[in-house]
Each structure stands twice: as C-alpha cells, then as structure tokens.
C-alpha cells in the first residue's frame, strides 16, 4: 500500500515561507474554490492556510539555534480526525494514504479539528467548511503536467530542497531512505497517530570553540570591520 508523505529537512529550511505562498497560490486557484482570507490588508489579517512556517529558538544564549519549522497536515496512518467525522466528509484514501476532506459533505462542526492534536485543520471562514493540506492531490496525478512537476506546490517552491515528497512505504524511495538514514522522526509520538510526514533532525554543527579566533574568521563582519570598538571592551 502506498503512503504519500512529506519529509522536512530541518537542517536546510531557512524559513523563507516560499512553501507557504506557493501552497496558498496553488490551492487558491483550484477547482475546490479559494482559500479565503479575512481582512488581508487590514489591521488583523487572517486567512486559511494549509501550511505555515514557524520559528523556534532552542538553547540558552549564546548557544542558541534558530529552527524554522514548517507545519502542515501529517497525513497520519492512524488519523484521529477521520473516525470522529459524523458525515464521512473526512477520509483517508486507501490507494495513497492521503487524508482528505469532501467540502461538499462537510457540515462545519469542527469536531475533526478538536480531534487533531497538531492543529493541522483550519475552518474556511467564508465557505464554512474544514480545510487542510491535500498534498496537492489535484496536481500530483495531473498527466498534463511534466513528470518533474507532479509534486506538491510547496516541494517545487522550496529553494533549499528542504521538502522531500514520496511514498514512505516504498523502502527504495528517496523519502524512506532519508527517514532511515537520517533518523526522520514523528511529531507527538505519544498519541500513536503514526504521522506519515517526518522531520529530519538537525545534525550537530561545528563547535564555536573550534572556529578561527575572532577577527580572522572570514564569516565574522564584527572582526573584520569593527565599527564599535567600545562594545568589544565591555
């Protein structure tokens, strides 16, 4: 059985939000209608998104790391959002494991959003139905597109190739190899939802102590062009 999924490489995500905007563009223009925005140019802009990039800071200064963290539906193998849906609008496809919503059957009761521990589902405040990532199901099977473009819009847009797409049940696929070789992990494993999407953890980087002394380090503009010597004495 096929299980399509995304694998996100946290080593190379730079937090540029290209995946967010390309997702929004593709899924705003599809046959399912727009992903509506409310007050997009006003004081409190809000809208429906399938994919968001968050930013986290780990560690204590100065040993901190900024982690950009893209977040979308994880297409769980045991999705808690599906059995709770009273109408069957929320379903998981047998053929490729994508969790989808039939917008024509959704009654907008929001129970599936309560049942998702990840907050991956968002109500479209204009259409009053639940929405979430479809893995660009209307794109990845489109025979009219060149083979290389039959991928989710976010994957194509990512400038650092931080997003891999493929069948995690095929041990020979790029995503399966990335997961097994680089320790791809699941979010909130404690709830046994078995998310199909995985994240590749950060690899330890070079120790700061091992870097050249300040001033000689070509990466350090502080050293080469010290515009504020007083700061260095403090």
């Amino acid at each position, binding site marked *: 059985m096929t299980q399509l999924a995304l694998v996100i490489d946290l080593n190379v995500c730079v937090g540029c939000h290209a995946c967010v905007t390309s997702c929004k563009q593709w899924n705003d223009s599809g046959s399912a209608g727009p992903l509506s925005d409310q007050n997009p140019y006003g004081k409190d*802009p809000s809208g429906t998104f399938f994919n*968001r*990039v968050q930013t986290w800071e780990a560690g204590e200064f100065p040993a901190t790391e900024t982690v950009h963290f893209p977040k979308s539906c994880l297409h769980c193998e045991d999705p808690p959002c599906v059995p709770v849906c009273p109408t069957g609008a929320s379903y998981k496809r047998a053929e490729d494991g994508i969790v989808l919503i039939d917008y024509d059957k959704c*009654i907008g009761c929001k129970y599936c959003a309560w049942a998702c521990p990840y907050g991956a589902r968002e109500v479209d405040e204009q*259409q009053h139905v639940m929405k979430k990532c479809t893995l660009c199901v209307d794109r990845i099977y489109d025979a009219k597109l060149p083979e290389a473009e039959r991928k989710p819009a976010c994957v194509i847009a990512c400038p650092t190739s931080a997003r891999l797409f493929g069948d995690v049940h095929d041990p020979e696929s790029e995503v399966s190899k990335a997961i097994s070789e680089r320790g791809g992990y699941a979010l*909130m494993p404690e709830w046994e939802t078995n998310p199909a999407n995985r994240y590749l953890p950060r690899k330890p980087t070079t120790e700061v102590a091992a870097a050249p002394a300040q001033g000689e380090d070509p990466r350090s503009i502080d050293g080469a062009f010290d515009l504020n010597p007083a700061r260095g004495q403090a």
Partner: protein
Amino acid sequence: MKPAWSVIFLTTLIGAGQGLFLAMVGIEAAARVGMMAPVAADFFVTGSFFVTLLLVCGLGASFLHLGHPERAWRAIVMWRTSWLSREVIVLPAFIAAVIAYGYAHAQGLNCTGWVAAAGVLLCVALFVCTAMIYSCLKFLQEWHTPLTSVNFFLLGTASGTLLAAALAATAWPLIVPRLAMAAAVLIAAGAVTRSLSLVRNARLRPKSTVQSATGIANLKIVQKAQGAMGGSFNTREFFHGRSTAALRLVKWFFLLAVFVLPLAMILLALEQGRSQWLVVVFGLQYAGLLAERWFFFAQARHPQNLYYQAIS
C-alpha cells in the same frame, strides 16, 4: 479550548430534559410497584411537553454550531465510528419516544410502560453519546476519563429531577417532597464526582511537551513566530483567552450555584413547606450549569496550543 455557547446550551438543555424524563418514569414506576399513590396523567403530559421543549431547544442550539446546518442530515452516516453521529441519531429518536410517552398518557393508553422503557434506553444512550464525544478524545486529557460520562449523567439527572420537583410544585404537591429529595441526593452525588474530576484535572501533567511537539530535544525551546501575524483558526478555536483568576471565579461560582446553594435551598424549602421556591432553585442551578459547562471546555488544554504560543 474556547467554550462554544451553542454546545454549552445543547448539553445543559438536553441534560435537564433527560433528567426530567427519567424523574417522570421514576414516579410512574414507583406508583406501579405501590411505593406511592398513582399520579394524575396530566403530570406526565405536561412533563413530556417540557422535556420535548428542552430537547428541541438543545437541538436548535446545536445547529448554531454548524457551518452548514442545511447539511446536518448527513451526520447520521458515520454511526459506526463517530459518537457525534450516534448522538445525532439518538437525540431525535429520544424526542420521538418522549412525544409518544406524553401522547400515551394523554390518551390513557396501557402501553406507557413499554414506551417508558424504550425512552429510558434512548435517554441513557444519549447521555453516553454526548459525554463520549468529549471523553473519547484521548489527548484532551481533562476529558478523557469515565468521570466525564458520570458527571454528564449526574448533573443532567440532578437538574431534571429538580425541574420535575419545581413542576410538581405548581399543581401536584403530593409528589414534591419525593422528587425534591431525589434531586438533593443526585446533587450531592454530582458534587462528589464533579469534585473528583476537578481534583484529577488539577493533578494532570500534559503528555505533550514543546519537545515532543517539535522533536527538538533541547530543554529550552521558545517559539519566536507561529507563521501568522493576525491570528488564525488555531488561535481562535482553542484558546479561551481568560485569566486564571477568571477561571477560578467561574469554578467557585458553579460549585456554589450547582451544588451548595441548591442543596441548602431544597432542604430549607422542604422544611418550610415553600415548594414554590424550587422554580427559583432550578433557575439558579441552570445558570450554574452553564458556568460548569463553560469551565469544562475552558479547562481542557489542547496539545495544538503548544504550536501557538508567540505571534512574532
């Protein structure tokens, strides 16, 4: 969670209706086995009218929760897996049973026992469905306990039995003491189980952490941006936005208004022979139950909130 008024009214209104129905059936059964004198049929007809009214109002409130109420009929499909779907089936069936019960009494039919039995089954099933909608969600740890079902049952029956006593006080004074005492017992039992759930929830430790949510093993992780500047469905649906002090105030209000004051007032009303007070007691307790249900939702901490701690 952000408490939804539609669901607060749904659960409290149908709870009172279910309790009133069970109280009526209890009176009829007690009369049949000779524990008390038979009660005039108009008590059951009037009672069934009020039960139906409460259930229909609850059903109406539930429609306000939906984005597409015109599609609500679709919700009967997934009864095999969804407690919500089961509730959607059982609630109208129970309304039909209550109407049949009132009709059978109005017409003086002999089948009231059978109708009552079917009604009791549907009534209990409805309590189970309503409570399981919440307690089946395992990562909402505050709800994921059998105490949720027990509390929905005891608070609903306490409220409904009190309403039955208040109703009896208007024209059927002979059954008031028994109903009022039954309400007092149910309120005391509900006080015990609701307190147990408060104690349990106060001791809960969330299973999900920022570390498990992000997979970053560092002990200190701080969110710097959540991916949206002006809020989102995630910030609107899952945060109640009230202070801890406000929550504490609501908790003490409902403990007083649902349990302590009604219990004292019922005993006082019985002793003073002022059964007309019971209507006021029911009103006070219903206000308390609205607060109780609000608190029930507000207290549940959804693990998705870990992803929405800082705007930027």
